[in-house]
């Protein structure tokens, strides 16, 4: 494996500022990024990557490669929560609600991990396609819906003895109708879930920017936004990762509650997902850059879209499990170790 790649990634200003954020928390410093700025940086990064992805996609057009990549993305986002859920309930003996929430977390994706990966590729001058942004956007929501379905299916029946009876399936989709269902279910509304999963602010921002990029590609508007979307990109990513370092470090103490097995899960599942992603990427003949991005998407875990939807759809799930796992373990692991690791493995097979 290419050790210089890891060191090189490590000495990258955005990654170093992530460590500075963690250090600040350990030193009990009062360093803090004002919250409205952190929120704006996140919107900026989504807008920037979405818009650029859209213009690039407009230039490349809807090819076979583009279509298969998107299909693979949706498939992975739907399959990962399924096997994650069974590992969590059967092996790790977690409750149904926590398992469903964690399964959704790992099936969905982290936009910032993806964005850090694009910056990583740009630094190494490895090209990638704009459609990967679309693939990312498509991966955000399916896992949430699968996770909620799993939760609703197994809160009535035990996960160990599944019986797909007609009534259990119809119960699954009939929300808030009769009085016989348990209390949290009578509060549940599919339209609310869809809204939170699909029209969530961050999903809408990336999808909207992608479409706007598609629509305005080629025109004079395309170049006019460049100083904003391109030149500031690394600087804002750097500041955002500083904030992520602060937030991640503050969540580390929650991991004690999670326990060693969940900490292990938060590293091993991404590795497993990355491996499956690599195999799929190889089978589909993706380019090196696209393959890395696809693998990173498979390996990454959500901490924005999933909590927003899950806290309402799976109210019993404990946020101090699924949030710190993705934020304080999987996220740092992916951007620090994962990126160079996945790339060096891919390089072996792609050359």
């Amino acid at each position: 494996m290419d050790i210089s790649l890891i060191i090189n990634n490590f000495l990258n200003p955005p990654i170093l500022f992530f460590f500075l954020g963690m250090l600040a928390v350990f030193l009990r410093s009062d360093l803090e990024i004002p919250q409205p700025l952190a929120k704006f940086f996140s919107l900026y990064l989504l807008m920037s990557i979405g818009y650029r992805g859209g213009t690039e996609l407009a230039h490349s057009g809807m090819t076979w490669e583009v279509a298969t990549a998107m299909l693979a993305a949706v498939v992975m986002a739907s399959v990962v929560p399924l096997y994650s859920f069974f590992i969590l309930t059967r092996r790790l003996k977690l409750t149904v609600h926590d398992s469903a929430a964690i399964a959704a977390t790992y099936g969905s994706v982290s936009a910032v991990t993806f964005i850090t990966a694009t910056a990583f590729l740009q630094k190494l001058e490895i090209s990638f396609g704009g459609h990967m942004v679309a693939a990312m956007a498509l991966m955000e929501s399916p896992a949430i819906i699968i996770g909620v379905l799993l939760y609703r299916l197994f809160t009535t029946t035990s996960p160990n003895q599944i019986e797909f009876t007609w009534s259990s399936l119809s119960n699954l989709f009939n929300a808030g109708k009769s009085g016989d269902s348990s209390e949290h279910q009578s509060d549940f509304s599919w339209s609310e879930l869809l809204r939170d999963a699909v029209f969530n602010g961050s999903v809408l921002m990336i999808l909207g920017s992608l479409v706007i990029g598609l629509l305005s590609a080629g025109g004079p508007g395309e170049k006019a936004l460049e100083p904003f979307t391109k030149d500031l990109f690394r600087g804002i990513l750097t500041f955002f990762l500083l904030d992520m370092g602060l937030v991640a470090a503050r969540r580390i103490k929650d991991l004690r509650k999670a326990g060693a097995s969940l900490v292990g899960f938060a590293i091993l599942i991404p590795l497993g997902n990355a491996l499956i992603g690599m195999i799929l990427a190889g089978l589909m003949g993706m380019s090196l850059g696209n393959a890395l991005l696809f693998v990173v998407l498979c390996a990454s875990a959500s901490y924005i879209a999933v909590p927003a939807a899950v806290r309402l759809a799976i109210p019993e799930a404990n946020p101090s499990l699924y949030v710190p796992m993705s934020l304080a373990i999987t996220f740092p692991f992916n951007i620090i170790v994962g990126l160079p690791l996945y790339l060096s493995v891919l390089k072996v097979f792609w050359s």
Partner: protein
Amino acid sequence: MQPVKRIEIIMDSTGLGKVAKTLENIGVSGYTVIRDVTGSGDRGIRPGDEITDVFKNTYVMTACPAEKVSQIVEAIRPILKRFGGVCLVSDALWIIH
């Protein structure tokens, strides 16, 4: 000065729309909202430093005549059940101006 009841509700920010609509349906058109409130309760600590606004609380206060209290409380209770939070009722005098 007129005696009124002061109802305070603290719950997940997501619930604000529902609480506001509930109050309006009951005919309580006066209330005050403080957003971006943090805290700790049965659902754990809410540090409010998330990257998004998920896991923040909202504080709602309304001063209303004593006879409306039970109606408001009954309407708010299911929202609190779902979104967590607390509801406190206390006494106050309203300065008529």
